[in-house]
């Protein structure tokens, strides 16, 4: 459509503080996880943090996924962040700074919802649907909150830790019953 030269770095580079030294980012604690910058937040700060990160130049949404920490509650979290059952994990990429950041948002198990990031990055649409499908975390404001991988009428959310995989008993020929 437009054959004119498109800027290679379409996002204006913004000076982002170097991750290991920065204690917080947009008011949320940052920790170093095996060389990757991870920002922790709870649900109240989630949208604000993500908008801030987008303004910092993280223009490409790599993915949104979830983790159910039901059977592994004692994980390392920075101070001020209270562990909840679910985590929504967002991976973001800045092409101009060649840097990545990961957001881990705590989501309570009894009322799992977070605001959608669709307004910031339309590319989170399918990932959020997948996370809803697999974990039952509701993304409020999502334009199409439906299942994506499982059938529409499916009950339950398969990647939750209290969702059994089920198994077929092995039947031996000579065994009683």
């Amino acid at each position: 459509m437009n054959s004119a030269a498109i800027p290679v770095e379409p996002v204006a580079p913004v000076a982002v503080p170097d991750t290991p030294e920065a204690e917080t980012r947009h008011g949320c604690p940052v920790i170093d996880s095996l060389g990757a910058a991870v920002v922790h937040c709870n649900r109240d700060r989630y949208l604000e943090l993500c908008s801030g990160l987008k303004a910092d130049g993280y223009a490409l949404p790599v993915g949104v996924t979830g983790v159910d920490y039901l059977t592994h509650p004692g994980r390392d979290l920075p101070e001020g962040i209270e562990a909840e059952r679910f985590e929504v994990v967002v991976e973001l990429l800045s092409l101009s700074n060649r840097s990545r950041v990961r957001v881990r948002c705590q989501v309570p198990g009894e009322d799992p919802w977070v605001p959608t990031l669709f307004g910031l990055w339309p590319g989170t649409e399918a990932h959020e649907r997948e996370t809803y499908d697999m974990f039952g975390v509701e993304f409020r404001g999502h334009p199409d909150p439906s299942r994506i991988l499982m059938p529409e009428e499916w009950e339950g959310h398969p990647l939750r830790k209290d969702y059994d995989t089920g198994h077929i008993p092995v039947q031996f020929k000579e065994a009683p019953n």
Partner: protein
Amino acid sequence: MSDIESPRKVTLVDRLLGRITPGGPELTELLENKTDEGIQEMAPRSRTSPRELRLESGSVLRLPEGVELNRADIDVETPEDESMILNLGPSHPSTHGVLRVMVEIDGETVLRSKPVVGYLHTGMEKTAEELMYHQGSTNVTRMDYLAPFFNELAYCLSVEKLLDIDIPVRATWIRMLMCEFNRISSHFLWLATNSADLGAINMLVYGWREREMVLAFFEKVTGLRMNHNYFRPGGVAADLPDGWRDDALALCQAIPRRMDEYDDLLTGQPILQNRLQGVGPLDAETAIGLGVTGPLLRSTGVAWDLRRDQPYLAYDDVDFDVIVGTSGDCWDRYAIRFNEIRESVRIIEQIMDMMPAGDFRTQDKKITPPPRNRIDESMEALIHHFKLYTEGFRVPPGEAYVPIESPRGESGCYIVSDGTARPYRMHMRAASFANLQAMAPLARGALLADTIAIVSTIDPVLGDVDR
């Protein structure tokens, strides 16, 4: 045993009526009487009715399914100003697997479209939570089945990051070699199917043929054409076989020559140009916002290739160009993949020169199982073998995400470990899944026939989308 002891020449009728058995009478006896429940085989062909046989051999014309439909049952009244919903797929060759695209069309123009996925969902991420770390690579290799090495690579790099181990240099270079060959085979398959979608049916055969050449090399190295399970946490499963260099060299010489032929065959062809040029243009900002990566992103002019921009393995040490488009249309995507095959050949030639000697997997006995012959000699090796295959190895608690550049874009594996021998959570960031989000904006306002070209140049692999 295989000789048929019949003086008469065996005819087709004999075969159809089951008068002869492949393998001869001895083999039949061997197969028939070996179970305690008696004969374990299908009913003999002689029991098939002559009509069935005629149907099978094609001498009876079978009528199409719709022939008995009562026309009065169909509602044929459709006002002209009303749009129509049409389902493309999920079982159609042009959807490259089981992609279903719901399109709302007005005449030939697509108003809206929505990809419907999930037909191939097999819960691999749930399965991964039940497998030990050393078993995981056999699971992930089935995700993007056209680029199995990239799945394994993302998984293994992620596990190795959690373990905080370094793998031997040779293993790194073997991984690069296999990955670049895999990029070639994947792009060849894309070239074949994309051309077939657009009507260049002869290219379909050529593309599959060239891919098969590369797969033959894979089979020699890993034992399997696909789903190799060759990369393991800590290195690779086996060293390169003797004579690998000759095979790789032969491929490196053959592929560029063939690419020149296909250049002549396809690139200058006016029909293909008309079908691709200016179709489905994507601009850089939209592409980035949609989270698309790989050739789809590079076609918009964004020079982003993880091999260059966030190097992993030893891509720092090889010299290659990142192919970038300008207008982001189907033609650019075609050209990028076409030339990436050439770039991969260039990388492979350098890898062959620089392939170091040494171990092909780490000598850490807590991670790498001992070789088979050591088990007979050493008690310690026996214990390590037993412990590894019954309990697996424990991975320190933490989380890691390692992205790599697969033929379709950024593939990455996110693993959360709780300190046991099984991943607490394993998530694959599938490039096809994210790239498919570009489908609806691209197809909007396009012609229905162009939708096929758009799906084809997005190049989704449904095993990767659905996992």
